[in-house]
């Protein structure tokens, strides 16, 4: 499906979704609460089949955090980006690792580098950083005077 068809057929799938202009692929903003149903629908409804989550990351916009999911379909070959706005103090979003198994590792990485809590993730622990680590390194306001030698 091309980008316009996607844009027209998506609202009935995700009622509260808004779309952004610009960028290479269709950007869809979804609320954190509805993300569980939307992700399930995106993968299992016939026409979409977004079965390949190839990039899951988070961006810290100093006022809020944005979760970014890059999805593609191995059958229809169309791509899409889903974005979720989370507030900075208590970022929480539903896990998607039962729809896409690759999310298990990616979510653990975002959890330790950004502090986003993924609800009912089977094994949410530090994956890359040592088990005891204060602060979330990839946030913009992360200060580490001992290790970080600023240029």
């Amino acid at each position: 499906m091309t980008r316009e068809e996607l844009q027209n057929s998506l609202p009935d799938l995700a009622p509260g979704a808004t779309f952004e202009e610009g960028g290479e692929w269709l950007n869809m903003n979804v609320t954190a609460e509805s993300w569980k149903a939307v992700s399930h629908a995106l993968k299992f409804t016939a026409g979409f089949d977004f079965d390949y989550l190839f990039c899951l990351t988070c961006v810290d916009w100093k006022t809020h955090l944005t979760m970014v999911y890059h999805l593609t379909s191995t059958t229809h070959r169309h791509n899409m980006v889903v974005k979720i706005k989370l507030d900075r103090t208590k970022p929480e979003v539903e896990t998607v690792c039962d729809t896409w198994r690759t999310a298990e590792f990616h979510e653990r990485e975002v959890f330790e580098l950004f502090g986003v809590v993924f609800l009912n993730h089977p094994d949410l622990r530090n994956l890359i950083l040592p088990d005891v680590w204060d602060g979330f390194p990839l946030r913009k306001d992360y200060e580490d005077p001992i290790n970080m030698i600023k240029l």
Partner: protein
Amino acid sequence: MDVNPKAPAPFPGEVIQTPGGGILVSRMDQVINWARSNSLWPLVFGTSCCAIEMMSTAAAKYDWSRFGFEVARATPRQADVIIIAGTIVNKMAPVLKRLYDQMAEPKYVIAMGACATSGGPFFYNTYSVVKGADHIIPVDVYIAGCPPRPEALIHAMLSLQEKIKSGMTREQIKMEKPEQSF
């Protein structure tokens, strides 16, 4: 290089006289050091890109077994020299220290590449890199380069052999003068 050089008159620092001892002991020490320096078994310890250059040195073209480095042992118990090939990160530091302690006694360390020498390209703006492996274990020979060429690694091994023969490695100095260990 001769073993006990006479220090020039206005010598700022203090010269550590390597204890020569009698003819027999010094003769015996030199034979032992000569034997040790010609069969240094490296530990299989490659963390990142320099490990590939170390493997190229181990392969046929730059063949380090010409100098007695043939056997790369996987366990520290049977290894003589750790070649720190790659970046040492905060999470890896205790592991490296533990490996160094578990090595049998005449042990030497070569810090290969800019990362092991000083953190290299990851010196600025990184929260997890140890800026140089000598923060963790005493290093005998440093190699510059990112990654250093196999010839540079072989040159470092030869200078380590020279150091061992002349008894100037950190571990040997520490053994002779335990109270002055640094």
